[in-house]
């Protein structure tokens, strides 16, 4: 390669780095940090077992419902994504993990059913009616037949202001219930509001057309029952558990029902109870049953500490490698350090730019990927220098040795990096969660390594080798005397004894 083209390669690669960092600093760009580095809540959900093959559209719908539920609790910038059957919910900042789990965890299958009979614990027929309450909680009760379900029971409050202790499932109240009248899908809106008296909270419910019709008809029937009868009650069932069973109010006329698709559920509790019920009613039932696979929260302080530790580890690693390379290859080692710095600037710059372009977020695992790639980048420099040594040993001049060494090292670099890139790509495509962040930065670094090697490294090495002054200096470490002293000694010995020619 001509000297001019080498110079162009060097200038061009430096210009790219300068332009990239000029833009980053000029625009004040920063990497998009993952939750483990900036703090936040991450929750992963997978479909519960025994649901068979799940339709893509149903999964998308599920993600949509979860998004609505999260929006309902008002978290800034929530990220809800699906990868295969895995649903990942990421809430940055100081999100309330328990609240988020609560609203997502309501994989609520919501049903409104007529109450046919109330069987309190201790009643004669309690033991033989239905299954035990512990068993009945699991799974979705069939919609089109009579079922026996239970309502949580609490013991007496232990003192003023104390929450009453929940009783074991064996003592819960059983309800014999009719078919489903209205299901979660029919609910269009639900709001918590203060009732006209201004004291207690209730939930205002809005139903769609079908729901409204069914609701009106059934409440009309219920209103015909005697005022104190359990048959006036309508049970609200969430995931097979009776949440409450409000009676139709006494002012509803028999045969007329509650029309207009609007109803009020008096919860009897405070604001929190009403709001929670409203969220559950509003966001409806999830189309499939999900279970928590993993959930974690990271405080912003912990995240910041991790970020600092990761960057520090990277910096220390880079410095150690720089010291080693300089010790081993003298001036050419310093050139290798320059190659590493260009590589590092490009990788970190790309992480920032890609954060801006495609929303790539840097996680702790991603930082680890970059740190690991320092080794890969250093190896490219090492292979070049070792190849150069071989070429010098083969008797080439500094300049031709540099060129021959490049083409051989280039082939090795391509072959080796193809393998590394394959590993990263396979990991990225097939893995979930943190592994992907790692694979992404590893793959990115491998690509950048090959690019830097083909441009900056090649030009820098080539230009040094073409400078007579630098090539002869013992400190640069290109001279045959430094690289292969034995060969030189042998040649000198031969020419001294008059047998060998000059090299």
């Amino acid at each position, binding site marked *: 390669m001509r000297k001019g083209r080498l110079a162009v390669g060097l200038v061009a690669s430096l210009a790219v780095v300068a332009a990239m960092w000029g833009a980053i600093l000029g625009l004040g760009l920063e990497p998009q940090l993952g939750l483990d580095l900036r703090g936040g809540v991450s929750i992963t959900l997978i479909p519960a*077992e025994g649901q068979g093959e799940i339709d893509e559209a149903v999964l998308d719908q599920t993600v949509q419902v979860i998004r609505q539920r999260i929006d309902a609790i008002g978290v800034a910038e929530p990220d809800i994504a699906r990868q295969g059957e895995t649903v990942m919910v990421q809430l940055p900042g100081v999100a309330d993990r328990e609240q988020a789990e609560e609203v997502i965890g309501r994989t609520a299958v919501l049903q409104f059913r007529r109450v046919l009979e109330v069987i309190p614990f201790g009643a004669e027929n309690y033991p033989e009616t239905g299954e035990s309450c512990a068993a009945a909680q699991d799974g979705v009760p069939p919609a089109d037949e009579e079922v026996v379900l239970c309502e949580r029971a609490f013991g007496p409050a232990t003192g003023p202001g104390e929450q009453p202790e929940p009783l074991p499932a064996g003592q819960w109240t059983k309800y014999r219930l009719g078919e489903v009248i209205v299901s979660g899908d029919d609910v269009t809106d639900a709001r918590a509001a203060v009732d006209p008296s201004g004291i207690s909270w209730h939930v205002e419910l809005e139903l769609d057309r079908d729901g409204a019709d069914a609701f009106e008809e059934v409440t009309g029937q219920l209103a015909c029952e005697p005022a104190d009868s359990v048959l006036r009650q309508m049970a609200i069932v969430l995931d097979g558990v009776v949440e409450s069973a409000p009676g139709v109010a006494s002012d509803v006329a028999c045969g007329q029902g509650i029309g207009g698709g609007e109803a009020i559920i008096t919860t009897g509790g405070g604001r929190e109870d009403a709001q929670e019920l409203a969220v559950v009613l509003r966001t409806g039932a999830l189309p499939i049953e999900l279970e928590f696979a993993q959930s974690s929260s990271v*405080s912003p302080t912990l995240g910041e500490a*991790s970020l600092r530790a990761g960057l520090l580890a990277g910096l220390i690693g880079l410095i150690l490698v720089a010291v080693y390379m300089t010790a081993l290859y003298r001036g050419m080692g310093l050139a290798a350090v320059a190659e590493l710095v260009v590589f590092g600037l490009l990788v970190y710059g790309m992480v920032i730019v890609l954060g801006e372009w495609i929303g790539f977020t840097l996680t702790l695992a991603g930082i680890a990927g970059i740190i690991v790639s320092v080794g890969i980048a250093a190896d490219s420099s090492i292979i070049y220098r070792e190849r150069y040594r071989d070429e010098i040993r083969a008797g080439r001049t500094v300049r031709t040795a540099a060129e021959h060494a490049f083409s051989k090292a280039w082939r*090795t670099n391509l072959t080796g990096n193809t393998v590394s890139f394959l590993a990263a790509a396979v990991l990225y495509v097939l*893995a979930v969660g943190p592994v992907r962040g790692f694979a992404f930065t590893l793959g990115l670094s491998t690509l950048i390594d090959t690019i830097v090697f083909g441009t900056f490294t090649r030009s820098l090495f080539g230009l040094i080798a073409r400078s007579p002054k630098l090539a002869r200096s013992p400190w640069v470490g290109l001279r045959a005397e430094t690289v292969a*002293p034995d060969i030189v000694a042998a040649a000198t010995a031969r020419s001294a004894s008059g047998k060998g020619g000059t090299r």
Partner: protein
Amino acid sequence: MSQTITRGPATGGGFKRFFTNQSQFDFVGRSRMWALISLVLIAVSLLALGVRQLNFGIDFTGGTTFIVTGAAGGFGAEDLREAVGATGVDEVSAQVVDGGEGAMVTTPSIEEVGGEQQDRVLDAIAEVAGVERGEIDVSAVGPRWGEQISRQAIRALVVFLVLVALYIAIRFEWRMALAALVTLAHDVIVTVGIYALVGFQVTPASVIALLTILGYSLYDTVVVFDRVTEDTARLSSVSTQTYGEVANSSLNEVLIRSLSTSVTSLLPVGSLLFIGATLLGAETLSDLALALFVGMAIGTYSSIAVATPALVWLKEREPRYAELKDKIETRRGRKA
């Protein structure tokens, strides 16, 4: 001049000779010794796996970890264990760091994410450490998550191996692909064996690391094979060296590169290990670094002591190289 074979009179001691690529270790000739060492390593690994089994972290088994930061101090790990134990949770492990400012409690038995048990433990820890509940970071893993990620890891591994074998077979030849796969199998078994033997905890990070190690080890192997291919291309029926001998000198030529690369790879990973170990909550970093550290060491060994001897064994079964070897041996035998 036939470049790779010429050796001038050695200058300097063994160390200097080593750093100027003049080492002449007989790696291939001692392939029986390497095979023996590797077989022993594999046997010990398999035995360790059978006897001790792997110590899977909560990401695989399910469980919950609580991390406290910014506490006032004045409590010990024993206090935490007792308080959490009192809520009816068994298998509690607790550690306190930074003089009581931070603490970590791990309970493999709480497998329900966001359940009542977790609630009670949160209260207990908040009381002991004197912090608000909301300030405790929780990482909870359900019982089925581990199975899910293991399945993905195995699938990734199989796809990766098939692709890499294809690539090497196309780029070089099938015997090299086979030798590389043998080397990989060796690396995986021994790394996993060390994990079983020492009892290091297996986390998703160690699985990532294992896959990376495979990439590294292959990369190393490919660099060596690249050189072997180049050097053995000159072999003909009248050559004075066998395939194994040429491969051995290729190995010696890239030896300094292999070792330098290992050093430059291990330095950043080592700093990662060190930093990760001193920071609470950065277990991802230290788990990753630990597995990388162990694996890279094995990968370096295997690319020298397993990959090339295995390749030579395969190649010298090819008629032309077998004939060459016979011829050279008879010639040398006659000379002797």
